[in-house]
């Protein structure tokens, strides 16, 4: 009679293990193979990331210099110059986008959290989820039709509108989640003390979830800062410094794209440097968001 497969075989001393029946050995082998495969998948996933980070840092750092950050681009084919206007441009366009996207997104999120259980709420929630999957280039086309065409020019504000719209769906959903995390007891205590419902929402509930809201906002800003396609035909590009909202403006992402597809070695170098700046910017925003999230967890329950 065949011995029953003994799961305790792994714990037994070697002498006994040698007598383990082969179906069990096969199962253990399969387990080991699959575990190994999964670990291999992790390695495969991590390798490109390491390559990208390594190259951006090693090739980009050579371009970084004071000139790089503060100068305008040199004429085509000449070396020298910098990406100062692109860096400032990104900050400017994203800053403008925040004015549009943040209130809208957070407002929609608060709506979903406070009054989102009805039919309108379900519709809005579903729409927001579905909108977050829309390719950014389509949002660019919409911004072109809504802003560039009537204004008859490319402008920072057109780019800001595109990025702002992009921010709204994900921000609304994350805001809803953050606000819903605030315990009901807090809200009910405030209402019990006679504070009107709207003041409760604003000054008690929202204030408690502030850390989470800032987290969500920073993450959506980080995403907006990394967008290129919508800016290609809204904010276009500019070789000079620009602080006027109704004029085309340079941006880091568009500059990286233009430099990367060009034939000039100097521009390729600058592309890596600009990519490093972009990653640092996005990374800084994300890290700040994470730090705030961490603090929130140890904050008021």
């Amino acid at each position, binding site marked *: 009679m065949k011995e029953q497969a003994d799961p305790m075989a792994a714990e037994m001393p070697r002498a006994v293990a040698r007598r383990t029946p082969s179906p069990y050995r096969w199962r253990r082998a399969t387990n080991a193979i699959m575990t190994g495969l999964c670990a291999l998948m992790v390695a495969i996933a991590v390798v490109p990331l390491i390559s990208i980070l390594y190259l951006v840092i090693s090739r980009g750092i050579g371009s970084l210099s004071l000139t790089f950050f503060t100068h305008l681009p*040199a*004429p*085509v*084919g000449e070396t020298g110059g910098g990406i100062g206007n692109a860096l400032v441009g990104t900050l400017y366009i994203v800053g403008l986008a925040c004015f549009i996207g943040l209130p809208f997104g957070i407002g929609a999120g608060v709506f979903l959290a406070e009054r989102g259980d009805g039919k309108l709420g379900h519709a809005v929630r579903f729409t927001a989820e579905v909108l977050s999957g829309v390719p950014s280039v389509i949002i660019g086309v919409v911004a072109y039709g809504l802003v*560039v*065409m009537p*204004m*008859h*020019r*490319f402008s920072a504000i057109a780019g800001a509108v595109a990025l702002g719209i992009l921010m709204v769906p994900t921000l609304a959903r994350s805001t809803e989640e953050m606000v819903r995390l605030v315990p009901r007891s807090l809200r009910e205590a405030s209402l019990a003390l006679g504070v009107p419902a709207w003041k409760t929402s604003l000054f008690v509930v929202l204030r408690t979830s502030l850390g989470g809201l800032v987290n969500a906002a920073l993450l959506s800003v980080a995403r907006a800062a990394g967008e290129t396609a919508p800016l290609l035909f809204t904010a*276009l*590009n*500019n*070789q*000079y*410094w*620009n*602080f*006027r909202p109704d*004029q*085309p403006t340079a941006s880091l992402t568009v500059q990286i794209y*233009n430099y990367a*597809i*060009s*034939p*000039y070695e100097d521009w390729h170098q600058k592309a890596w440097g600009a990519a490093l700046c972009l990653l640092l910017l996005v990374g800084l925003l994300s890290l700040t968001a994470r730090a705030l999230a961490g603090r929130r967890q140890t904050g008021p329950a």
Partner: protein
Amino acid sequence: MTTILMALLINGAGATFPFPLYSKWFNEYNKQHADLQFNYQSIGSGGGIKQITERTVDFGATDAPMSEAELAKAPGILHVPMVLGAVAVVSNGVPDGVKLGGDVLADIFLGKISKWNDPRIAALNPGVKLPDTAIAVAHRSDGSGTTAVFTDYLAKVSPEWKSGVGAGKSVKWPVGLGGKGNEGVTGLVKSTPGAIGYVELAYAKQNALPMVALKNADGQFVKPSIESTSEAAAGVEMPADYRVSITNAKGKGAYPISSFTYLLVYKDQGDAEKGKALQGFLWWAIHDGQKLAAPLDYAPLPKAVVAKVEGTVKSITVKGAKSDLATAK
């Protein structure tokens, strides 16, 4: 700092063909006039024509003259010739100066000749070692005046090209990789072994790409250069609106794919400051600016053309009123 903030920003967009020169021009002009900033985006001639038609920019730029249909949509637009350039046929991995005839070139771009050591190419280049590599065609993916000039030439020398593909800023390429702008195509050719592409001479020179010597209308094999470009424009009958093609021009040393490149401005400018600034720049460009052309391998405008263009620049009005320039000289 205040000049930067108070400076007048004039936006333009269009051809990538003259971009190296325009880039230098605007930079120089800004050094002389710190209060005037010309922001030029090289998005292709197609983009330039579109943007100036819709008036989303203050001036456009194109190598391909606007068609009748395009002109109808932009009444009052002026073509102002700026400089002459050559469309160089560049390659990767092939010796510089390899000879090609127009029909052979067309067949390469039609996909009928697929290897560099094809007998038809070898026949034109006795004694030259041609590699046994596949020809990787590179063309423009965006609406391009350079493409218009190039396909205009191919249509003239190859009936099959004319009927099969045709000429224009954007065509249905039978084969090849697409690059964005002259910069994109140069980048493709530079990085792909066995590639062939068509780019403005400045890009070819700046990136040290081997160039093809093309057979011209007189049967001579000519490489693109300032001299061969100027010769192509030498005998041109310049119409009043400057819309002319000089591809496959006659002349022993004429380069067959040469072209004028134009700035597009409206004859009547709506904004006084911008109008004056534009007019001032155009005047500078056809005089002082021409001196900056040769170092970047663009050919300056023939003297006869400059004289005509002066008249055109002077004719620019601001809200119907004649400009100071017109009344001055």
